[in-house]
Structure formats: structure tokens, C-alpha cells
């Protein structure tokens, strides 16, 4: 009988022993080494052991009886010191064993981030029973806190299990969405939402700086300054093949032990199986290919022919209630097309990736019933051109079904606020409908929903339609773009009602039909999110038009215009010298504008950071002449100089501009202040125009002097400058919170009615609340974009990535 020695009693080598013994129980005299003081158990079921849903005994694959019955000599808890391949012996701590055939099944070990404090007690991995026991013990303390580093499969299973044990759990993940190797951002968003619903805190783009504590791990500090007190730290950031013993024994290794398709190493009679092997440059972490390897190796050892081949893999997460599936390749490569399906009502997201009439990848969240069918199509390379139209609905829907455009509203809970003006929730409207209010007029009369500014009319009609079914004929509204059936007003209202705070959230919860929007909806959604959630949402430059991304106006020849701010149209000799010098240095054409400032035209993109730096040095900031935001406040010289001037119109203009600059609005906003009714600053065709009179200030709004020409309408007459500023600010904030993207104030006021605007702003408390919300937004957005981009790191982005013409000249 030949002597077989196996090093490592893990899942792969365990499967190998089963296959060998089943095929030929008398073929080998087997000795099994294991550094852990126990035999083979189902390591992937450690999560339920950690959560307490299973006991360790339940996940043991091979117990003492099994090893005894099959005459396997077990040397558990004994480390292998070395292997002498010349003499063909394995040297254990307790003595040598000779072999005819040797199998490495040394598996892998957890990768530990080498940050300061990584070696403190209380920092564990999630690989074996010892780690699991340490975490279980930490969870026993009431109110205990855990920090899990790593938002991949293993980390999330650990986090969910610790949460089930009652711990406060925070997951830190370095990437911008969870499980980025298996999921796309949309599915990652839903997973995060599910985990947060069960009380787990998830911090994305979180970089661990250090773990600190007095003799044990007590706090994790992040690079951004966040401090997380904790009782235990679980590092689940990845695994590394355990190959030191093989390397020391002279077995050929790359990133792991190199094997051929028969699982042979380059050394005669030495084999390897499991997570410690490298095959054609690939490493292995999931169980399915390991079992394939075990099967192949059993045949090889028994002298039969068999070949190991890579195959497509699918992933499922073992967290109860998180239903996700991913398979194939869904990220890389040109020539691919997406099919996206979202059902917000049921929290479902599905994305199929198609290449040359074949399905190559699938990601699903919420409903994974068809996962294996899709996986089959991927593995078999089935031609799907015939069923392409209905493919995403799975095998049972091959007849075809359509997405319900009302699903976003159907999904709203009763407490979701539909009418923001009057605080009317969906439940109130449904109750009114059930009580007999079956059209819009009756709903307005009974609930006041949509009776004020009217922007929620579309949503109220959808609630009518969802509740009444065919009895209510829904008027057609113009959707934002081809990505959705919802009009702007509905999207804005739903962002508030459902507290949607990211683009991913909007796309998923409102049933977007595209993967990540288009050039029409992306800038609008980006504005709505930053206007509604200034502290929670981060502005996305990639969802902005070129001018707002580059903070300059692109011209027809691809150069840019640069316009520094001149507060209230006032400037100084020093500023003019700096502007003149910049114009000369960068070869710009100089133009005086209608907004009382100076435009420098024809600046090259590469020169933008440099010209900004020069203008910043002279004390000037961006004039935002390129934004949907505050442009200028035009003024006349007022009582300072003019013999007719009644008030300090220049001073008020400067104060207004200093208050409002930097704010983003649905469309551009221009102001003017005239010092007397002669109106030299042309205030009566602006978005907000103020005319100074002896008794105070006449504030008027909603003028236009572009494609349409329209005189402003009087909003209010006030006595003091402070009141004029307060009313102006509140008006602009109301416009920011309610208007459709790309509606100038005059268009928005025409829709909601000036009377409604007056009514809201006349309420002292509401007016002050609007100003407060504006100030909060300004705390984030009133920053000079030029200064930020003139910094060397940011300025680099304005240069070409590479210049291959220089290389070619060599």
C-alpha cells in the first residue's frame, strides 16, 4: 500500500479524502496533518456559528469516528516543520513520516492590514473557530461594539452575525460600494440599505489609519479623523495563500503553489489542492472550484485521467434577508450592452450584460429566483438574440411583461409626504379617495394636497390612479428624459418624501430604466440632491455640464472665458492691473459685459489653473459666469454719488452678492439694485430687482430679459436693508427647493403663482427658516472653486493624461 501524506485538513483536502476513499478504500495509507487542533469542518458555515444560529458540532464534516473508520492517521494540532522532497519525508513537530505521494492543502490565511495596532489583542480575522470564539466572547458583554474592516462577502457575513448577537456593528469599506468585486454600484446601494435597516452602520471609502488601545483594541481611527470606539476589531479584507512551507521545501510557487491541470506541482509526487494553489495565474477563494480540484486530484492519485478547467462562478451572500446574486463578468469590456430592470416597490434590481448576443454577466438584488437560469445561459454561452426583449423577466415571463410606471408611487409608505406645502401624506390622500374624493379637485378640497404651489399635482394624480385603478384616467406628463416616466416635479417631491440622498438611491427607488442616467437627467438629479440634502449629498462633477465642471465658459473653439467677480460692479486700479496683466500673459481677448464685469476670452484649458492662481493672488474669486447659480448683482452708484440716489444701492448690491455667491440654483439667477425709480441698474427685468425709494426698498421678482422679456412683479416693500436681504434670500431658497431644473424664476413663479410665493414668504417663521436652510447650504458651497482648483494636485487634472507626440519625436 502506498503512503499518502496530506498537509492541512480543510474543505478541499477533506473532499479529496472522501473521493479517494469512495473510489478505492485500500489504495493508500493516509496520514493527515492539521495545525488547527481539529479535523475538517465546513468553514463557510462559520457565519451561522458566529451568529448563534448553528453550533460548531453541526458544521463538522469529518468527526473522530469518520477518521477512525477510514483508517486516517490524524496528527491534529501538530505543525509541519519541513518537507524533504529528496528523502520523501514530512517532518512534523512530533517526528517524521515517509510518503510516496504528498498533498499540500495548506489553504490560506487572512490578510491583516499592517496598520499601527494590528497586533493588539482583540484584533481578529474571520477564518477559523478561534476567531469565531473570540468574537462570540466579545459579544457577550452588554452594549459591546464591533468594527468590521472589509465590506466583502466575509466581512458582511461577520457583521450581520455580530449584529444578530446584539452588538453595535460598524463596517468599514475602502471602495465606494460594498462587495465591489461581485456587485455593481446599484446592487451595492440596495445591500447597504438592507444592512442599515438591520442596524449595521456602513462607512464607505473609509481608510483605517490605526487601531489604538491600552493593551487591547479599544478604538479604530480613520484617515479622515473619525474615531470608532470598539470592543473587538474583525479584519476581513482578504486572504493570502499559505505557501511558506511549500516555498521552504523548494516547491515552485508564484503567488501560490503552481499546479498543472492534474494538480501536480513541479516536484515529482507532490500535489496541491485548494486555496493554496495557483493554476494558470488564477487563485481560488470560493468553494466550487476547490471541490472540482479535489475530484481531479483524486483521479490523478489513482492513476486515472482527469483535467481541471476554470469555470464561471456565481456568488450568493449568506445573510438572511439579503437576497443577492452575481455571476460572470459585468464590469469590463467594450462591445457590451446592458439590460436594466428596477422595481422600487419590491426593492428589486436586475442587470444583465450582453456581448455579441450572449449573456456574459448578471447582477441581481431582491429577487434572485432566476439566478441559476441566467447562470446557465452564461456558462453555456447560449445565443439569446431570440429572447432578448423579455430576457430580463426570466424563464417564466418569456411571453413579455412591462414595467409599471406607477411602481414608484405604489411603493410609497402611507406616511410619505406628498404635498410639502400643506403636509399631506399619501395615507391622507388614500383615505380621502376611499371616502369619495375621486378627482383632483375633490382631493384639493378635502385634503388641501396640491392646493398651494401645485408642483405635487402629478403625484396626487398618480395616487388617485394607483388607488382607483382604471376608474381614473391619468393625464400624461412630460417625463424628465427617456430614463424615467416621472416628470421633474414628481422626482423632486419623491426625493424629499423618501429621503433619497444619492443618485443610486434615486435611480433605484424611482425605477430608472438606464444604468446611470443620461446627460439630461444627471445634472437635474445632481442639483435636486445637493439642494435638498446639502450636508448629506456630495456634489458630483461628472454629472455637470462642462462649464460647471471646469468653472469657466467653453467657447465654440474649445477655449474658455474667465470672469472674476466684481462685487456689485465695483473694482479698483489694483484689480484692473491684475486683470490686464493676466489678459496679456494668457493671450486673452478683453470684453466688458452687461453684468458689470470684465470677461477674458480665449484662455486654453491647460492655462485655467494658472490664470485663476494669478487672479486669486490679486484678491479676486470666480464670478460664476458659467453656473446655474448666482451670477451678478448689478448696481448704480446710488446715494454715494448720484444727486437722485435715495439709498446706498451699491452697498446693498455688494451685501447681497456677498451673501448669495457660490449658491447653486435651478437656473442662473441675476440681481440688480437701482438707487431710485429712474432704474439705471435695469432692476425691473432681473430675477430679483430692488428699487430704492425714500421710504425703503421695493423688492420685485420674476423678471426676464432673454428669450422672453418680462417686467418684474412686486414681492414686498420693506423699510430696511436687512429686511430686503432677508426677503431676497428667502425667495431664492424657495426657488432652490421647489423649481424644476432649468426653469428661471419667472417660469417657476408662473407655475406656482406669485400669490403662493407671497403667502409663504409673508410668514415670518417660514421666511427665517428658509434663510437658515440657505445659510446651511452656503456653509458647504460658498467656496471659491478657482482657489480649490489652482492647487497643484487639482490643477494636474486640467492637463492631458499623456503626450504621445513627444515620445514619437525621439
Amino acid at each position, binding site marked *: 500500500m502506498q503512503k499518502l501524506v496530506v498537509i492541512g485538513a480543510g474543505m478541499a483536502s477533506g473532499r479529496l479524502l472522501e473521493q479517494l476513499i469512495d473510489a478505492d478504500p485500500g489504495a493508500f495509507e493516509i496520514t493527515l496533518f492539521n495545525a488547527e487542533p481539529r479535523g475538517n469542518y465546513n468553514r463557510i458555515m462559520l457565519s451561522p456559528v458566529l451568529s448563534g444560529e448553528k453550533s460548531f458540532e453541526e458544521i463538522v464534516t469529518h468527526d473522530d469516528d469518520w477518521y477512525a473508520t477510514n483508517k486516517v492517521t490524524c496528527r491534529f494540532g501538530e505543525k509541519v516543520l519541513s518537507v524533504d522532497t529528496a528523502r520523501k519525508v514530512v517532518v512534523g513537530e512530533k517526528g517524521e513520516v515517509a510518503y510516496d505521494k504528498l498533498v499540500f492543502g495548506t489553504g490560506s490565511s487572512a490578510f491583516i492590514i499592517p496598520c499601527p495596532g494590528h497586533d493588539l489583542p482583540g484584533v481578529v480575522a474571520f477564518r477559523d473557530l478561534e476567531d469565531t470564539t473570540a468574537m462570540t466572547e466579545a459579544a457577550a458583554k452588554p452594549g459591546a461594539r464591533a468594527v468590521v474592516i472589509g465590506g466583502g462577502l466575509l466581512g458582511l457575513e461577520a457583521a450581520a452575525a455580530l449584529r444578530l448577537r446584539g452588538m453595535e456593528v460598524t463596517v468599514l469599506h475602502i471602495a465606494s460600494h460594498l462587495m*465591489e468585486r461581485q456587485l*455593481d*454600484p446599484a446592487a451595492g446601494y440596495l445591500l447597504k440599505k438592507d444592512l442599515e435597516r438591520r442596524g449595521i452602520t456602513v462607512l464607505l471609502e473609509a481608510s483605517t489609519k490605526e487601531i489604538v488601545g491600552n493593551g487591547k483594541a479599544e478604538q479604530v481611527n480613520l484617515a479622515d479623523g473619525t474615531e470608532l470606539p470598539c470592543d473587538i476589531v474583525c479584519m476581513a479584507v482578504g486572504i493570502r495563500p499559505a505557501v511558506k512551507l511549500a516555498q521552504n521545501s523548494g516547491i515552485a510557487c508564484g503567488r501560490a503553489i503552481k499546479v498543472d491541470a492534474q494538480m501536480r506541482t513541479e516536484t515529482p509526487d507532490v500535489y496541491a489542492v485548494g486555496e493554496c494553489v495557483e493554476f494558470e495565474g488564477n487563485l481560488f477563494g470560493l468553494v466550487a472550484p476547490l471541490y472540482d480540484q479535489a475530484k481531479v486530484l483524486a483521479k490523478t492519485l489513482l492513476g486515472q485521467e482527469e483535467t481541471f478547467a476554470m469555470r464561471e462562478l456565481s456568488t450568493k451572500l449568506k445573510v438572511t434577508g439579503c437576497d443577492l446574486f452575481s455571476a460572470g463578468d459585468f*464590469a*469590463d*469590456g*467594450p*462591445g*457590451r*450592452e*446592458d439590460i436594466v430592470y428596477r422595481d422600487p416597490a419590491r426593492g428589486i434590481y436586475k442587470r444583465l450584460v450582453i456581448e455579441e448576443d450572449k449573456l456574459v454577466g448578471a447582477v441581481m438584488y431582491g429577487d434572485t429566483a432566476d439566478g441559476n437560469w441566467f447562470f446557465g445561459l452564461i456558462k453555456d454561452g447560449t445565443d439569446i438574440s431570440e429572447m432578448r426583449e423579455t430576457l430580463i423577466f426570466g424563464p417564466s415571463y418569456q411571453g413579455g411583461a412591462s414595467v409599471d410606471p406607477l411602481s414608484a408611487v405604489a411603493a410609497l409608505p402611507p406616511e410619505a409626504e406628498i404635498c410639502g406645502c400643506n403636509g399631506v401624506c399619501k395615507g391622507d390622500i388614500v383615505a380621502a379617495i376611499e371616502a369619495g374624493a375621486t378627482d383632483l379637485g375633490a382631493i384639493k378640497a378635502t385634503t388641501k394636497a396640491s392646493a398651494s404651489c401645485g408642483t405635487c399635482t402629478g403625484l396626487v394624480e398618480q395616487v388617485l390612479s394607483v388607488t382607483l385603478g382604471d376608474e381614473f384616467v391619468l393625464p400624461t406628463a412630460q417625463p424628465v428624459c427617456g430614463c424615467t416616466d416621472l416628470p421633474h416635479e414628481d422626482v423632486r417631491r419623491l426625493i424629499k418624501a423618501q429621503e433619497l440622498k444619492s443618485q443610486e438611491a434615486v435611480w433605484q427607488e424611482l425605477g430608472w430604466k*438606464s*444604468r*446611470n*442616467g*443620461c*446627460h439630461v437627467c*444627471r*445634472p437635474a438629479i445632481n442639483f435636486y440632491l445637493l439642494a435638498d440634502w446639502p450636508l448629506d449629498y456630495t456634489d458630483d*462633477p*461628472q*454629472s*455637470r*455640464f*462642462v462649464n460647471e*465642471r*471646469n468653472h469657466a465658459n*467653453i467657447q*465654440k*473653439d*474649445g477655449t474658455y472665458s474667465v470672469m472674476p467677480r466684481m462685487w456689485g460692479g465695483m473694482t479698483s486700479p489694483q484689480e484692473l492691473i491684475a486683470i490686464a496683466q493676466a489678459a496679456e500673459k494668457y493671450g486673452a481677448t478683453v470684453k466688458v459685459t452687461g453684468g458689470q464685469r470684465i470677461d477674458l476670452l480665449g484662455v486654453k484649458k491647460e492655462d485655467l489653473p494658472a490664470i485663476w492662481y494669478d487672479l486669486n493672488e490679486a484678491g479676486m474669486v470666480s464670478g460664476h459666469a458659467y453656473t446655474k447659480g448666482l451670477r451678478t448683482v448689478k448696481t448704480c452708484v446710488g446715494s454715494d454719488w448720484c444727486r437722485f440716489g435715495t439709498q446706498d444701492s451699491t452697498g446693498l448690491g455688494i451685501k447681497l452678492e456677498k451673501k448669495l455667491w457660490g449658491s447653486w440654483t435651478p437656473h442662473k439667477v441675476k440681481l440688480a439694485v437701482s438707487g431710485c425709480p429712474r432704474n439705471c441698474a435695469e432692476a425691473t427685468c432681473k430675477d430679483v430687482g430692488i428699487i430704492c425709494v425714500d421710504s425703503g426698498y421695493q423688492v420685485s421678482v420674476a423678471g426676464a430679459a432673454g428669450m422672453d422679456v418680462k417686467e418684474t412683479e412686486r414681492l414686498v416693500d420693506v423699510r430696511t436693508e436687512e429686511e430686503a436681504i432677508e426677503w431676497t434670500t428667502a425667495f431664492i431658497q424657495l426657488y432652490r427647493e421647489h423649481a424644476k431644473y432649468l426653469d428661471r424664476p419667472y417660469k417657476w413663479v408662473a407655475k406656482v403663482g406669485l400669490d403662493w410665493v407671497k403667502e409663504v414668504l409673508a410668514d415670518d417663521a417660514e421666511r427665517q427658516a428658509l434663510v437658515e436652510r440657505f445659510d446651511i447650504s452656503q456653509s458647504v458651497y460658498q467656496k471659491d472653486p478657482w482657489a480649490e482648483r489652482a492647487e497643484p494636485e487639482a490643477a494636474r*487634472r486640467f492637463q*492631458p*493624461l*499623456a*503626450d*504621445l*507626440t513627444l*515620445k*514619437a519625436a525621439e
Partner: protein
Amino acid sequence: MSWIDIGHIDDVPLRGARLVKTEVGCVAIFRTDEAEVFAASNTCPHRQGPLSEGIVHGQKVTCPLHNWVFDLNTGEAQGADEGRITTYPVRLEDGRILLDGEAVSTRSAA
């Protein structure tokens, strides 16, 4: 083909683009996903708008000047607009962006 390393994937913003100067003119490198890049001519055939400054969505880009939309796989203009931009072979390897040097060189074209 001769692959030239032109930079790291993270040098290109997600759903954004960067320029590469070549002998055949400016080439835009578009990053449409975490690990998905395309290379195409930077110049819109309509009024020569710089496509690297456009909004990137799905596997398409919208020209910043007049909203022409191009499919980055084929270079074809979408919808009613007619035109095409040249696309170039590009690939990713361990986070590095590799552009085919021959395709963007005047010598190979001769």
C-alpha cells in the same frame, strides 16, 4: 499592436474623461465604470466640440457643445444625428490604462 501605458485608471474620474495627445490628434480616454475604459477621438464631427468634456453615461458620451450622443463601442452618433468618431484599442491591466500605440501613430497609418 504595441500597448503604451498612459496612466492609472484612477487618474480618470469615474464617468469622466481625460485627454491624450497623439500624432493623430487628441484622443479622449473615457472611464464609463469602475474598471471600464474606452478610447476615441476627442473631436465631435459636428462642430469639433471636445468630447472629453461631455457627460459620460452608460457606454456613451454627450458632446458638450450641441448634445450629440456617441456610442463609445462603435463611435456612431445616436438618434437622428449622423456621424462617427474613430475609436482606438485600449485595455486595462492591473489598474494601468494601455493604449494601442500603432493605432495612434502616423507611421503605422502610412
